[in-house]
Each structure stands twice: as C-alpha cells, then as structure tokens.
C-alpha cells in the first residue's frame, strides 16, 4: 500500500516541487494541494498519512514569515489538523513551513496552539543561502536518529530560533525536542557562519513532545541527489543525497507504525 503525502501549497509556496520529488524518490505517493482546496474539503486529509508544509514565502511573508498562513490554519483548519495529529500521523514543516508551525503553536507544542517561540530575523539582517552542518542530539523525533549528522543548505532571512522564555527553552531541551543543531564540519558548536542566523543554542530544527511533528530551517529536499552537494566536483558523487534520509524515514515510519493506510 502506498504512503500518501499531502504537500500543502498556497500563494508564495515555492519549494513544493522539489519536496514532491524527494518524497517520490523515497517511495511515497504525493499530492500537491492548494490550501483553498483543502479548506473546501478538509475531509480529504484522511487520505494522507504525512502532511508537509514546504518552503517559500507564504503570502509574501509580508507580516512576518509564515504569519498569515499560520493564522489561516488556526482559523480554518484547526479541527481537521487536530484529528490528523491525533491519529498519530506525521506533520513536517521545512523552512517557511517550520515558521508556520512555530507561529501556530504546533511547535514546540508544549501547549498546543499557543505560540511559545519564534523564528526571527537572522543576525546578519539579510537573506542568506549557504550550506552548513547539522548534528542531532538525543531526541524524541520519530524521523531523526540520535547523533545523526547532515550537510544541508539554508536559505532564509528569518531563521533565528528564539524561545519565549528560558523555561520554554529548558523544557524543549529536557524533553528531547531539539532535533538538529548547527555545527561546524567537525560536528562542534560554532558561531556564524556555521550557525547562519544566530539561533539560540544553535537550534536548526525541533519536534513536538510526541516526536511526530518536525520543523527545520535547512532544506533536506535540496540535498536528495548526489549532484546537489556543492562539493561533488571535488569529492565525487555519492550514492544519494544526505537529505533524502529524512524523507525515507518518514515513509518507513508510516509503513511500520501506521500500518496499511486506510483507504
């Protein structure tokens, strides 16, 4: 039985096609669905086991990254989303999708639907596209192994993770919700540019307490082919891009833990 992935689109989404491609490489069936269509028929969500909010500039990010789409999800799709999550399904936000999930309060999700953290302007004040290294601490995400390392690009202007309070930060740390930290090539904490935005505690990605909602600023879908690696002309072509691992893990999780999809 195929694993079905819903890739949510809206005005300004722009990483939908490569995210679609990555999930297809990982063996999933995918559908690109516009938020208007989903609002018109929210029951469609039951067909899917994975919901992805891809990168881009939803509604131009004119009122802050992800803000308008977060407001739309909260005001129009909260119940179907709640149902989706209660069924143990996966929700992934990449870059702008992560910003949306944080602003809805789904991440870190200590109190679901209340915003307790944000992704604000980079310390450099500008949009930056650069590759960096990630290391996974011990964490509860069902998609990321402890100690895992990844090499991925970031491309954003608002990616600096900040928690509402020290207490919130302590809780997400203690509960294993920090999924990825920026590091240097040796896997050690390092300042700019390895931490490209000034994120507190070098946080690049987090999950909710259940481990089934994941958000990250770097773009795994931009490193799913060997030719995506900026240094392949030096180091040769690997078998596959490192970022593909996350997509494979998601498909595998659904196959193993959610059994045959309803349908």
């Amino acid at each position, binding site marked *: 039985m195929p694993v079905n992935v819903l890739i949510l689109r809206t005005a300004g989404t722009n990483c939908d096609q490569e995210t679609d491609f990555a999930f297809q490489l990982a063996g999933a069936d995918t559908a690109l669905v516009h938020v208007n269509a989903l609002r018109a028929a929210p029951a469609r969500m039951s067909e899917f086991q994975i919901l992805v909010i891809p990168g881009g*500039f939803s509604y131009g990010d004119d*009122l802050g990254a992800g803000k308008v789409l977060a407001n739309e999800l909260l005001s129009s799709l909260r119940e179907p989303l709640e149902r989706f999550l209660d069924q143990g399904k996966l929700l992934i936000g990449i870059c702008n999708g992560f910003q949306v999930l944080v602003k809805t309060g789904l991440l870190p999700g200590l109190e679901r639907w209340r915003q307790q953290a944000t992704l604000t302007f980079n310390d450099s004040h500008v949009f930056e596209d650069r590759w960096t290294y990630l290391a996974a601490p011990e964490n509860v995400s069902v998609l990321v192994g402890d100690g895992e390392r990844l090499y991925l690009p970031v491309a954003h202007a608002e990616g600096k993770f900040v928690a*509402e309070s020290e207490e919130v930060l302590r809780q997400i740390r203690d509960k294993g919700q920090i999924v990825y930290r920026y590091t240097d090539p040796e896997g050690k904490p390092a300042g700019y540019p390895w931490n490209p935005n000034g994120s507190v505690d070098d946080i690049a990605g987090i999950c909710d307490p259940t481990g089934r909602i994941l958000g990250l600023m770097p773009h795994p879908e931009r490193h799913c082919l060997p030719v995506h690696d900026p240094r392949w002309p030096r180091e040769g072509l690997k078998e596959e891009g490192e970022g593909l691992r996350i997509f494979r893990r998601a498909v595998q999780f659904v196959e193993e833990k959610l059994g045959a999809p309803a349908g």
Partner: protein
Amino acid sequence: MQYRIEVVHKKEWPDPAGLSALADIRDLGIEAARDVRAVDVFLVDGTLDRDEVRTLTEKLFLDPVVQQYRIPGPGQERWDWAEGPGVHSIEVKRKPGVMDPVQQSALKGAEDLSLRDKIEAIRTARKYLVRGDLSRAELERAAWKALANDTIEEVHIDQPEVEYPLHELRYDFDLVEVPLVQADDDEMLRISREGVLSLSLEEMKTIQDHFRKLGRHPTDVELEILAQTWSEHCVHKTLRGHITYEGPVPEGWEDRVDQDGRLVLDNLLALTVVGATTKLARPWCVSVFEDNAGVIEFDDAYHVCFKVETHNHPSAIEPYGGANTGIGGVIRDPLGTGLGAKPILNTDVFCFGPLDMAEEDVPRGALHPKRVMKGVVAGVRDYGNRMGIPTANGAVYFDERYTGNPLVYCGNIGLLPKDCVEKAARPGDLAVVVGGRTGRDGIHGATFSSVELTSESEEVSGGAVQIGNAITEKKVADTLLKARDRGLYTGLTDCGAGGLSCAVGEMGQETGAEAEIQHIPLKYQGLSYTEIWISEAQERMVLSVPPENLDELMEIFQSEDVEATVIGRFTDDGMLRVKYGGNVVAELEMDFVHKGLPRFKGRAKWEPPSFPDPLVEESWAEATSEQAQACRKALAGPDDCADALARILAAPNVRSKEWIVRQYDHEVQGQTVVKPLVGVNCDGPGDACVITPVLGSHKGLAVGCGLNPKYADIDTYHSAACAIDEALRNITAVGAPIERTAILDNFCWGNTRRPEQLGTLVRAALACYDYAVGFGVPFISGKDSLNNEFNTGEETISIPPTLLISAIAVMEDVRHAVTMDLKGPGNLLYLVGMTHPELGGSHYLELFGLTGITVPHVRVQRARPIMQALWSTVQRGLVRSCHDLSEGGMATAAAEMAFAGAVGLEISLRSVPYEGPDGHRLDSVLLFSESASRFLVEVPPENAAAFEAEFSALPLAQVGLTNDAGALTIVGLEGQKLMEAPLGRLKAAWLTPLVGR
C-alpha cells in the same frame, strides 16, 4: 475611523531594521546618531472596535515573542528605552498609489479572522526613533539620503502621530484631443517633449500626415499608443535603421563601403546580430528574435528560452523598485513566450559608480553608488527569492561613469514544452487580463527609457517608477501554467513596456482588437482612460481565449485567488478600437500602429583613440611626462609582484561578490548542480552555473556571461569580441560545449543620435556578427538601451559603451561538469591558449593609472578549436579543474584556483606559450596580459598524455604543479622567484568586503 498600531522589537531583542538604518545613517557621516529603533506602523481604517483591532494586531501584525505593540491613545504604553527626550522620529510612508504589498496580505489575514467586512483599508508606514543630538538638517539628510526616497515616499520628522486621510479619488470622463493637425514643427516638438512621448520631429510629422488624411485630430491616448509602440524600447528603431559609418572598417565588411569610403548599413540589426543567426541556421534554434524570449531545443520534451532585459532609468531613481520590477518584468518574458514557459533561472548583471565615492562628489540628482547597489541587490533579492526562481549567474562592474546612470540587467530562463511554441490570437477570441490590478504606476516607462536622465529626473518621472509584488506574479505563474496544460487559450503576452496598450496591440496586430477600458480592474479610482491604457502596472498578462473555454479558465484562476477579467476581444477588421464606457477613445489601423514608423537614418563615425601604452613606444611621445613615467614603470614590472596581485584581487571589479550572491536563493527548485560559489569552502568564483531543468534528469544547462567596458574605451569592436569570448570561456570552463551554445546581446549605450556614440555601437555590432559566425554560436535574443546619459546640469556624462553577452549551453550530462577550484596536490597545471602582449584595458595597467591601447584581440580561428578540444578533454574525464583567464590575467586566475581549492601551486613563466615581439616577452606581460581564449587546467599526471594529445596543433604548455605548501609561487623567465604568497593573504585581499558591515 482610523486606528494607528505601532509594533516595535522588545528592548532585549536586536532590531534588524533599526540597526540597518543606524548603519546607513552613520554611513552618511552623521555621527550624532547613537541608536535607531524601527517601529512598524499599521493604519487601519474601518468600523472595527478596539478589541477587534487588538485581535487583528495580535494575530497578524505582531510576533509576540520578540515584539510588543501599542495603539496610541489615552494611557498608551510608553517605550522609555526607545523614545523620550533626545530621541527624534522620522516617519516614512509610501505615497498614495504606490504599491504596498503588506496591504494585500493583511486583508487576506483579516478575511480569515472574519473581520474583512469591517475594514476599508490597511496601510503601513515605518517610524524610525533616532536617539542622538541631531540637527534638523541632519534629520532631513538622514531621512532623504538613507531612509526614504522622494519619488515614492513621504516623510514626517518629529511629528508623533501623523494622520493619513484616505483619499477619495474621482475621474470624470472628458475626451481629450491633441491639436496636431495644424501644428508647426516647434509645436509638435513641444507636444512630444511635454508629453514625455520621446517622438522625433519626423515621427511627429508622420503622425500628423496620417491624421490629416483622416481629417481629425488624434486623441491623447492615440498619440500615447503610437509613442509607446514606436519607442526605442519596443521597436529598436536605431538598430533597425539605415546607418552610414565613417571610420576604419573591420576586415570582411569592405564590400559594403560606398564610393565615398563610408560603410552603409541598411538595418544594422538584421545585418549583424540577426544576420549571424540566419547564416548559422542551427537546427536547434526554435524561435529567435520573434517572441518575448529566444527559444532553443533542450531535450525530447522541452525547449528552453532566455531573455535579458535592462531596467536602468527606473533603478537610477528608485533602486529598489527599479530592480524589483526589472526582475519581475523579465520573468514575465519567458512566462509570455509561446504559450508560457516555466521560469527556472534568473541572471543579474549590474554596473555602478565606485562604492567609495565621497558624498560631495555625487552629482546632484544622483544617488550614492552604495545606496544604489544596496537597493538594487535588495530589489532583485526580494522579487527573485519570492518567485522561487534561483538567481545563480551574474556580474558586477564599477566605473565612475555609471554613477548617475547605473545599469541593471536582469535575465530569466524558462522551460517550455515542445508543443507550446506556436500561438496566435484568433478573431472572436476574448482578451483576458490576468494578475495585478492597474494603477497609476509605471506611466511612460517605455518612452522614459529614451530620455536622458538629469538632475531633475526624479521629479518629472516619478510615475515611471514602481514597486512590484512578487506574490501576485507567483500566483499568476502557478495558475497560468495549469491553464496552458489544459490548452485553454490560444495566445498570450506579458504587459511590459507600454502596458495593455502594447500587449493588446501586439496580440491583435494580425487580426484587430477592441477593448473596453472600464472593464479593467483598478487598484483605486480616479484614473483617466489614458492612464489606464498605458499604465505599466506590474504582474499582468494578457490571454486570447476562445469563448467556449472561458468558464474553465476562470475557475482555474479563481481557485488560487488570481484575478482574471475579460476586457475585450480580437476582431478581424485590422483596427485597434478602445472604448471608455462605450465612448470610442482610440481607433487606429493596426498597420499604421505597427508599420507606420518612419525608418531612422543615422550617421556614425569612429576615430581610434590614442592612449599611451607601455607596449607601444611611439605612444609615449604624445603622453604627459607622468604617463610616460607610468609606462616605463609598467614595462619594468612591479617591484613586488605579490603586492600587485593582491591589489588586483582586491580591485572592486575582481574581488568576491559573495555579499550579493548569498542574498539570492541560488538553489530553490533543487536544480542548481554547479553553484555560483564553488570550492572547498564554497566561496570561490565559479565560472558559470549549471542547472538541471528537469528534476531527476542529468541533462543540463550552463549559463555564463561576458562584459568588459574597459576594453570598450579603446575599441568596441574588440571589446565585443572579448565579451563573446568571455561568455564562451565561462561555458567551456565548466565543461559545456560551445557547439550547443546560444548567446544574447544587451547593448547599453549613450545617446546614439551623436555620431561618435553610434560609431562605437556599429563597431560592436559588426564584431557580434564576425565572432558569432566565427565561433558558430547564434544570437537568439537581445535588447538595447540607448540613452544612458546623465546630465548634471553642467555636463552630460555618458556611460562607457557596455555590451553584455549572456550565454546558455545545453549539456548532455551535468555529471561531467568541472569547477575552478584546484582539487589536490601533485597535479599538473596547463595553460591553454596563446598569450600576446596585450595590456590595453587591463587591471595591471590600471595599477599604473593607464588605459593603454593594446586591447586583447580574439583570434577566433584558434579560439574555437581550443574550446572544442578543452570540452572534449573534460567530457573524457581528464580534467580536475578549469578556470578561464579574464580580468587580471593568468596571475589572478591561478590565485583564485589555488585559494578556492586550498591547494598550493607553483608556476613557471618560462613555458608560457607566447606570440609577439621578443622584447615584450616579459614577466609582467605573461602574468597580467588579459589575452583572450585562455584557460588554466588542472590535470592528474596519469591523464597528461591523453590531455596533451587533444591539443596537438594548439597552444598548450604545462606551466605548473600543485602542491600542499599553502602558497602561490611564481618563477619568472630568468628563473627568479617573482613571488611566494601565502594563499591566506591572497584570499584575504580577494575577500575585501564590497560594503562595510
């Protein structure tokens, strides 16, 4: 009522907008400014109560983690840390009618909160709280030089809560006729000038004759339609004109010389740029010089198309908006090519004045080059990134003459299904406008581009400047391609220069068209019919739609909130008929609109300049003693070679452009497989980018460019040849074949009504023909911008003749690509190509304050086989890295390769292939000559024999060896060590920041 909501970053969080503003203000030398806090101001008009305003704010305007807000009124929150005594406020708001993208998003959010019905408008402003003892004059300067632009914004200094009334705008129809039929010459010129029509006397007379025959005056909008359609921007009347040229004639053109010794060129464009393509007749050229972009074959399913445009004058006046709409506009070209191509790559090339120019040296009416650059880069960034199109190739060039008239070239490549090339509106089809609404923005853009910029331009042409809204265009692109795939329309084009006037006129050229202006959706009321018809408001496309497809088409657009409206239809009577509320306001024969323009006749002349050159001893005689001294020094060679190299690496035209490149998303769409920055630390200067337009396929495109205004000061013929050579070197250096390469031309020149300017243009065009044919590389598209001058009030400054050549090559398999960074120690370094004593226009001579005259020549009979052989060795996997030699010559290229790869290198100049007088075979010439068609290539020892065999009859020599010593060592002709420079030192010079901070 109107609510004002103020949002600010909390005290404990850095405020990015405030910090940027502070840096910009201090940059002006206003040391008194100690701190700046930026306040986002939202102005909400409507019937909301206070609680609803709070909901709106908390849900939409505020990031509660890092920001706080207040609604001014009794008992309002005080922000003591940001305001109070010693703090001034500068409030900046866009003028009424200027695009404010926030508005649309905010209204969308309000709708989701079920508050939309209670809101009349949401507008924004930005207030800067400036701490410090600034005088009124300093505040004014900070406001206008750093924070606001008079063209689009208004400023309020130290006024706490400005109220902004909503303007009710009205327009009452009144048909305006222009009394042209009896007008004399002076009167006609006055009409053209005052209307910013940019029509010549001869053109005005042609129009007068036409209306005399019709027995009536033209209406204002008819005159505008003709002015737009006949503008240089739209028809390239100069390049298509009849030109006689006096001056030295390049070889091969003698048979066009008349008995008086003048070269006669009837339609320069057809004889040169287009002529080369016709002669080459490449079967993979699908559509050239016809559609909005040139189309070439890509793979079994797709073609690709490429267009490069300029947006110079708007960027001079409002850099952010100008560049923003420049990239937005060129994206619509591929989108409007055939039945619509998917935009997949942006390119950008900029020319600015020197960034370190003293504020007092900036001519009145011009912006400081640094401000221009920051605005332009931000404009391209914000539009390109939001469109989700990678920007991965470009160049930046600095010269004082660009200060008042910067150049902004923007390019876009699209992917077009093979069955979507043909299009034609058919009689009976409906004319549908899709996308943005029409406003009073961008009026006279097409004709304004032909006007000389002056210190007054800001005032007269504010209307020509616009701000884009990328998300509107993104939505149009998403939905349009869906409609295309369902075959719902027969033709389309973009609304660019000339707006709906040009778009509808162009689509209905063969059939006829009629339109009702009152059906066109407006951003706001109060526009006259003429303003609506010629407005160049952004993000609009026009489709021709068979009536039976209309419902299905409309449903697609509606499903993603894209506005689409029927505004007219295509007819079969060959007339362009435009109405306003049923009143005919324009009725013109399509034939007259499109074919009535009288041929331009131009006189061109060129005299070779004389600049002292170290390699031409006779030239020293006429030089000043200072120059002669400099010539001698340059010939003797630098005292410290490493220092000379470091200075060249740090020269603004050579140094790293990383500050710009990183601000662009260069890998969205997941297709960029050779990035613009390469090497062990991803920061070396890649020669060309490579993308794979179809995800999962390894078939690719390499994209590069060439431009060298320095050589153009000596001879535009060789400058053009070198620009072509450079673009092709870029392509070759990453492993793409010139046999599958197409090129584009963009001429930016001064006023070509002056014979000397037209003379240099003719020479450049002749070279375009000679070298396109010589290399076997066709032109597929081009554009010219011919009035790039700035009048300071005292003198007219013309830009250097600037020809941009962009190149696009199809690669069978991108996995064969190579990059320029050295890969490891123990490899051989070859120099491919011949070095000549050519220092003219070089960076080396610039160190001595000289221009020189020995400009590099391209010897195409040798250059083409060199590039072919090199491609073949890369294909066979014999090459580890490859870099082309351009500005700064071999020394610069070697340094870049070494520090990008963090691999040491030792080079000896003794074996460098050289052709020229023995006396000029000098260390400095071999190191710094910028001779064309040369490459440095890293080859592992085991591949050496096979590599050399490919170059049997071509200039090639092993000149060096890579090592792990961490330095660049160069040994001179006499066996002496010329330099041993640590790579860190060279790299640090090259990484000299473009802008502070």
